[in-house]
């Protein structure tokens, strides 16, 4: 009696497991379905937004949509702009943030507490409050339509707080003291001891920054008044209303291209990325 009861409970738990697995698979499918749709349409010849089993089987597959995108000088320029401004922001943000986080964590200089609190407070400031003044300030410095106009405002407190939360355990004080006894200069200490230890969290920040800047719409819209600065995200945002509006395959191909860089980055650095989000969620 007892035996059958235990057995049936185990069977029940297997059934629950299967049901849960099916639910999870369905939600995962919903998560990627729009991307599958995008990919399928981008590889098809005809111009309709329809997607059916029948179409998947009978459609002619081609790379023409992608070729059409890359044939245009403007499109290559969008990719160039996005790449430059994104890498620029990544480098500056990682460098500047790790420097500041290092000072806050290990220097304990006069006023560092107050400053750190101020950094924390700026996290509460919503982006729309700074949007108009950012435009005016950049205009004053004649910096509209420069890569700096998008890259520099991105370097907020987030990176500093993220690296700071990692610094306590990630960079032991003993190591710094040892380096000091060896006669390391401050700069050497930072570049040779601190930065290598911060590698994983810096990679996390780099991915965050990359995805943020690459996909940013509002800032480029505001600070790029000339069309030759247009980023790929801006370009892709405008396509539905331009003359290419019904070339669905072509539009999807452009979306695929805009999606690929963050996606590829994720494929390679998945672990750091997930760790970075977990860190930002649990520690700050």
């Amino acid at each position, binding site marked *: 009696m007892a035996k059958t009861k235990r057995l049936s409970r185990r069977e029940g738990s297997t059934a629950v497991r299967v049901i849960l697995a099916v639910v999870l698979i369905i*939600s995962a499918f919903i*998560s990627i379905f729009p991307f599958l749709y995008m990919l399928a349409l981008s590889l098809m010849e005809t111009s309709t937004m329809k997607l059916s089993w029948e179409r998947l089987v009978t459609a002619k597959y081609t790379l023409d949509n992608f070729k059409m995108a890359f044939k245009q000088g403007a499109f290559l320029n969008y990719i160039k702009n996005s790449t430059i401004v994104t890498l620029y922001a990544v480098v500056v943000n990682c460098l500047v943030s790790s420097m500041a986080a290092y*000072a806050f964590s290990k220097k304990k200089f006069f006023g560092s507490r107050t*400053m750190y609190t101020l950094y924390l407070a700026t996290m509460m400031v*919503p982006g729309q409050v700074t949007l*108009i003044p*950012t435009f005016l300030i950049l205009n004053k410095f004649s910096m509209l339509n420069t890569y700096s106009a998008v890259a520099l405002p991105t370097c907020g407190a987030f990176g500093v707080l993220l690296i700071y939360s990692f610094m306590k355990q990630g960079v032991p004080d003993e190591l710094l003291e040892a380096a000091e006894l060896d006669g390391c200069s401050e700069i050497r200490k930072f570049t040779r001891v601190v930065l290598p230890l911060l590698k994983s969290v810096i990679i996390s920040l780099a991915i965050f920054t990359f995805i943020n800047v690459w996909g940013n719409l509002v800032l480029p819209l505001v600070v790029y008044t000339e069309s030759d600065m247009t980023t790929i995200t801006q370009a892709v*945002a405008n396509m539905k209303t331009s003359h290419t509006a019904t070339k*669905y395959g072509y539009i999807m191909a452009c979306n695929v291209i805009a999606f690929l860089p963050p996606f590829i980055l994720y494929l390679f650095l998945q672990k750091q990325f997930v760790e970075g*989000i977990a860190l930002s969620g649990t520690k700050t």
Partner: protein
Amino acid sequence: MKTNINKKRRRRNNLWGYTFTAPSAILLFVFIVLPIFISVALSLTDFSGFNEPTYVGFKNYVDMFKDKKFLASMKNTFIYVLTTVPLQTILSLVVAAILAEKFQNAFGEFIRGTMFIPVLCSAVIAGNLFFYLFASDKNAVINSMLMLFGLDKVNWLGKSDTAMLVICMVAVWKNVGYFLVIFYAAIMDVPKSLHEAARIDGASPMQRFFNITMPSIRPVLYLVITLSTIWAFQVFDITMVMTKGGPGTATMSPVLLVYNYAFTDHRMGYASAIACILAVVIFVISMLQKLVFKEED
């Protein structure tokens, strides 16, 4: 003598501290701190972006409450918050709990990895994709599915109520993977011994979830709710790409409104006032949430 050396050391330490913080602090000052003050100052003026700002007192703040577009955008935001925040919090929490309880294996990792993909794409791409999926055309994916079941096609983005619904769905679809990762990490941080002890006492998975997991991840729950509320107030890309705030003002979001007023209508003073009010509202809501979470402790 010794104190002299100490003093020198401290001064050196301070100097390097400032040097290392300076680049970041300057950027933070120029692009966040200074803009806050400018925003507040501008909000009290009439300023087109070209003229000299003229002081008008609190006129902009008074006008706001007679502005149908602004009121609509605030109403939309509250609908949006009330829809997306509970949905994405509960969905991501439930999935994270199921994964941590039953699927700490390759399958679970695959599910997490897959559900994270929407986080990678920009809101612009997400908006684009759902724009076509939910197009009014009978060939669009969602409508053709409806018609397969013998239902009528729906003009999703052309009608007020469904347009808002679609926009909320896009946000939930895009954010769940992010919060899933946060919740999953938090749940995995809960000491295993607690669960073991409860299991021996015969607690069901449900009981363990509500009595052990939930209390342990409170701070993370607070973070997720606050974060998704703040994000809800900052919707821009999705509405810009999918509906431009329409039909009418049905999906107008406050940030889109700020953008339109400042850079299309050249009413920067008025737009600044809206931005400031938004900041205050966001601040108050985060504080209230903090209070609620503190109270229950």
